[in-house]
């Protein structure tokens, strides 16, 4: 009898120690809870990713991530305050602690990760340089551009990238230089070139400015690799964990077929253990990070899964009408991936 109580006591002590160890202090999370809102750094204005609409509400794919994070942490997707950031101030504003997380269309690179004191917590958009061509040209990939002419802004990274890429492949492509991006896209629109090149996200915005946007198609396979995702400061591992897994959670939800519409039903009756863990019906996953167990339920209910966000902000439900391309789930031919909720 005595040994059993002792064993039970030891076991209890053990679990306590374990949970204490798991719940490392998170000053960022404590600060967010104390002030009652999330501080999110976003882009000053990038069509589809982060912009203020006519009513002054911030919307976009990057903004949706902030809303999902707020829903997971505070239970309310509206409890976010946005700090629009310019290119020059995006890193300092995160480093100096003025925002909790930066969701601002910034490319993940080795040197940034190694030297800025910042960690990139996953990828919410696979950006990459690609081409826009006329639908009637019937071009499906950049390799088929042999003999074509491409409009670019002189001296831009895009010009160099494209020239290198075609040279490596021995493709004869005429690169026509223009002073500015706007001149290049106008020239493309007026038929002086067969293609225009820029990043996927930028092209989506520029296509909407063309005379007849529907006549043009953006090639889905890019020639460069510029993945983007939410960024946090070094330190406060538990907060980094939360930032990472909320992003993973929105992708997992799409994988598992959980949407903002069926989330209640899924939580109540799904037989799939991963769905049940994700939505907090079992496993106590939220508690392991110091969050309520329904963290992802709240995020998906209020913001939706990754696919819903994508379609609403940059995809077919938006004026940009961008195809999923690389930002499709890995099971459907894209690159979007999340480790399992186990």
């Amino acid at each position, binding site marked *: 009898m005595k040994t059993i109580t002792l064993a039970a006591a030891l076991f209890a002590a053990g679990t306590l120690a374990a949970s204490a160890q798991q719940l490392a202090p998170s000053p960022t999370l404590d600060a967010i809870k104390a002030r009652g809102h999330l501080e999110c750094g976003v*882009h*000053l*204005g*990038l*069509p*589809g990713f*982060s*912009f*203020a*609409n*006519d009513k*002054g509400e911030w919307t976009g794919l990057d903004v949706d991530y902030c809303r999902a994070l707020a829903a997971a942490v505070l239970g309310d997707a509206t409890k976010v*305050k946005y*700090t*629009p*950031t*310019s290119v*020059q*101030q995006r890193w*300092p*504003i995160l*480093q*100096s*602690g*003025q925002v909790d997380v930066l969701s601002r269309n910034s490319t993940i690179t080795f040197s940034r990760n190694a030297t800025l004191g910042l960690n990139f917590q996953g990828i919410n958009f696979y950006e990459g340089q690609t081409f826009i061509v006329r639908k009637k040209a019937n071009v499906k990939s950049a390799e088929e551009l042999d003999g074509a002419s491409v409009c670019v802004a002189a001296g831009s990274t895009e010009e160099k990238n494209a020239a290198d890429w075609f040279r490596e492949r021995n493709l004869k492509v005429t690169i026509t230089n223009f002073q500015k991006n706007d001149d290049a896209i106008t020239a493309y629109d007026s038929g002086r070139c067969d293609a225009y090149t820029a990043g996927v996200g930028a092209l989506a*915005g520029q296509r*909407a*400015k063309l005379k007849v946007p529907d006549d043009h198609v953006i090639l889905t396979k890019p020639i460069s690799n510029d993945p983007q995702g939410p960024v946090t400061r070094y330190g406060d591992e538990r907060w980094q964990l939360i930032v990472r897994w909320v992003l993973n959670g929105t992708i997992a939800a799409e994988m598992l077929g959980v949407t903002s519409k069926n989330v209640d039903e899924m939580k109540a009756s799904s037989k799939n253990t991963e769905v049940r863990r994700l939505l907090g019906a079992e496993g106590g996953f939220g508690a392991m990070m110091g969050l309520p167990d329904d963290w992802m339920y709240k995020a998906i209910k209020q913001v939706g899964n990754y696919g819903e966000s994508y379609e609403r902000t940059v995809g077919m439900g*938006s*004026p*940009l009408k961008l195809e999923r391309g690389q930002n499709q789930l890995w099971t459907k031919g894209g690159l979007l991936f999340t480790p399992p909720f186990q």
Partner: protein
Amino acid sequence: MSAANTLPTSWRERLFGTPTVTVVTLLLAALLAWIAVPIIRWALIDATWSGQTRNDCTGSGACWVFIKARFGQFMYGFYPVDERWRPNLAGILFALSGAAIILAPKRLKLSLGLAALVILPPLGIWLLAGGFGLRAIETREWGGLMLTVFLSIYASLIAIPLGILLALGRQSELKVIKLISVLFIEFWRGVPIIAVIFLASLLLPLIMPSGIGVDRLARAVIGLGFCIAAYMAEAVRGGLQALPKGQREAGTALGLSYWKATWFIILPQALRISLPAITNEFIALVKNTTLVLVVSILDLLGIAQASLADPNWVGMNMEAYVFSGALYWLICFALSRWSKSLETKRGR
């Protein structure tokens, strides 16, 4: 005057007096029409004025629907809609007291001006920022024209008094005061305003102890104010140096102290002389407020630029820039006319 006498008096003679003059007039008229007609067509004749969305803009001209839809944001930024009476009231109060000071009888002018200077600035901040009974509104929600006006007024509230003090300090016989003034002026004059705003916004939070935060907008106002103060100081110094030495000596001979002589004799004359230069600095200040865009404070130009990112209004660059440019021009033109009328009044 002699040149005016030789000019013919009637417009017809002036424009079409001789064959050469006629040709030049016609050429200039053609040039004007060549430039102006497409602009007028774009801005007025072919423009779309009514509608709700981008799809309503089918004409080849400007799409003013965009400005209409975004008008609130262009004026107030993200300031909550039901609280917008507060910046309006603040603006009216500032304008009314300005008018009162101009229209007041001469003996009341000074006391009225000083009273306004003491009461209005804190009152304005209270109305805009809230607290003490009003709903608190963070400065990050401020924006648009309201923010441009706020920045200009409050930065000049720092710049004008500080500039006058610095100009006096630079002329001072006390070596330490002179040195401090010269150092201050040369430092702030030598640093680009954009660098000052950038440092104030980014470096301060990094070096300040955590927990002590100075508001982002306040930092920008102070930075702008200091820079303009240095320029103002030089403008005022011009006025001070233009005064004959005898003015101060006469004051001293009458037994006036330094401050009394400065206040009653030196400054009124020096400021009158430097008024055009001061106006110039003030107009420069209004336009320099656009530099706060680098730290993502959305003034009139910033909000115009930010609104271009809305995919529902993509491609409205011309409309946004023309509208905000016209507003800046109106403000600066009004300022220069006002200063001109002051000059003529004072110059009697």
